[in-house]
């Protein structure tokens, strides 16, 4: 068995989730690919240790967030936000939500986006999110609060409807 088979299996088993997380963070397919590649290089280097006594999933998530947040800011190409593709009935509620969220994400800081993705896309707890971001739970709470408050301002369509309980409950 090739010693890289474990790494290969790990990536291929999680490729969809990894790709989607990277895409949610960057909003651009090419940038998502670059982000993933740079992170997976690190994971490959650490694989001998990770495969024995590590947690490859947690390590990869943390590396992904660190890499994303530390990318240099000279030219920010992420979230180009060209007209998002329409699907099916073009103006149903879900479509509007998606468009509004996509546009609002462009206005968030990287850390705020990362917090939203980890808490509400990956469904991590505050403690797990803090671990992934290398910060305190208190910092996760405050970043989440700011991110949701900003979302409320930027995407009132999201917050005016019935089930905004999440935004309200977390923002307290």
């Amino acid at each position, binding site marked *: 068995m090739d010693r890289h088979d474990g790494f290969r299996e790990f990536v291929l088993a999680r490729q969809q989730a990894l790709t989607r997380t990277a895409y*949610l963070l960057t909003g651009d397919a090419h940038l998502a690919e670059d982000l993933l590649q740079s992170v997976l290089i690190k994971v490959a280097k650490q694989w001998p240790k990770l495969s024995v006594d590590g947690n490859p999933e947690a390590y990869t998530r943390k590396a992904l967030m660190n890499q994303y947040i530390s*990318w240099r800011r000279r030219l*920010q190409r992420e979230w180009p936000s060209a007209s998002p593709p329409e699907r099916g009935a073009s103006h149903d509620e879900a479509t509007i939500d998606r468009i509004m969220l996509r546009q609002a994400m462009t206005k968030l800081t990287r850390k705020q986006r990362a917090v*939203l993705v980890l808490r509400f896309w990956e469904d991590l707890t505050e403690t797990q999110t803090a671990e992934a971001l290398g910060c305190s739970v208190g910092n996760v709470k405050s970043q989440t609060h700011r991110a949701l408050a900003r979302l409320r301002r930027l995407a009132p369509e999201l917050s005016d409807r019935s089930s905004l309980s999440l935004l309200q409950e977390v923002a307290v």
Partner: protein
Amino acid sequence: MTRLRRALNDLAEEAPSADLSGMVDRILTGNRRRRHTTAVLAAVATVVTVVATGTVMATVTRSRSPEVAASLRAGAIADLPGGNVGPLEYAYETPCKVDKRKALDCSSAEWRVVTRAGTTYRLPQALAMTAQNHRVPVSISRDGRMLAYYSRKARAHVVRDLVGGSETTSPVTVKESQIGAGSMLVLSDDGRHVVFDPREGTKKPGLLIDVRTGTTVRVPGQYEAVSVRGGVAELVRYLRTDLRLMPVTGGGRTVHFDGTFTGFSEISPDGRTVAAFERRDAKKWVQELRTLTLLDVGTGRRVREVPIGGLPEGEPVMATGPWLSGSELTVVVQDSKRTYVYGVDIGAGKTRRLADHPNAPYLTLPGIASN
């Protein structure tokens, strides 16, 4: 499911279908592909040769890909010798290797430099990767004569004069563990100062170091160094957007620009103008990254906007490079295959193509901050 979760879910489904098997193969064979801006930021400087006064003397149009590939294949590349080896054209970092047991070995990653005469040398004294697997940048002065790198042995930055042959080790010790992910290094034109940012994009402060005296000046973490010229460091705080011109002795003044700007150039030879891209509407990002805004660093006023003509259709500018003169600025445009360098007449917005390069990874070129 809450609406936020559902909307995130829907958004995530816009991601392209994932098939990372090709990427895994590339990673395991060390054949990485790089599209990110950082890879091409430095590319522009390969086309200009600048003397100490800042005057452009010549432009060169040639691809480096075969040379890089050849040097990677070559078994016996000499270490950089002492003495005069001539100014550098660029530096690059070698990729990780795969050994006979197909194990990935990144400990072999190293920096190499290529002189203007075309000779490639290994640079084993320059640390390429920290023990924590963070890349360690090198930096080349605008005229290609000075090279700054981090020496593990000295635990400090070293500036080598490639023409005079002298070597100056900074008296300021920097622990290897202080070099974080995305660290940056900027070298002044005269090789006397380096700006070390331990982790660009964070609030960790950087250091402007006088490598001769060991004097240091703290660089606020929210600022990013663009250049150090004529005893003044150009620092940018993105998004707000502020630009600080900080003398190497500290202090300085900050000018605020009303708007959100990215992609700052160095200061124009007129000493009062910088170029940047204004970001107003994320939907129009390509158009915005094809329109330069000239800004007055004295007053913060916009001087004028310059739509750039003649660039490849649909491609945004990836980076600004050195000024060729007071009226011509270089910009970099990239597509999936090549990286193109254009000179832009900032009066009329007309362009002339100066060079095209392969999208080589980890290229460091003269006069541009590297990470």
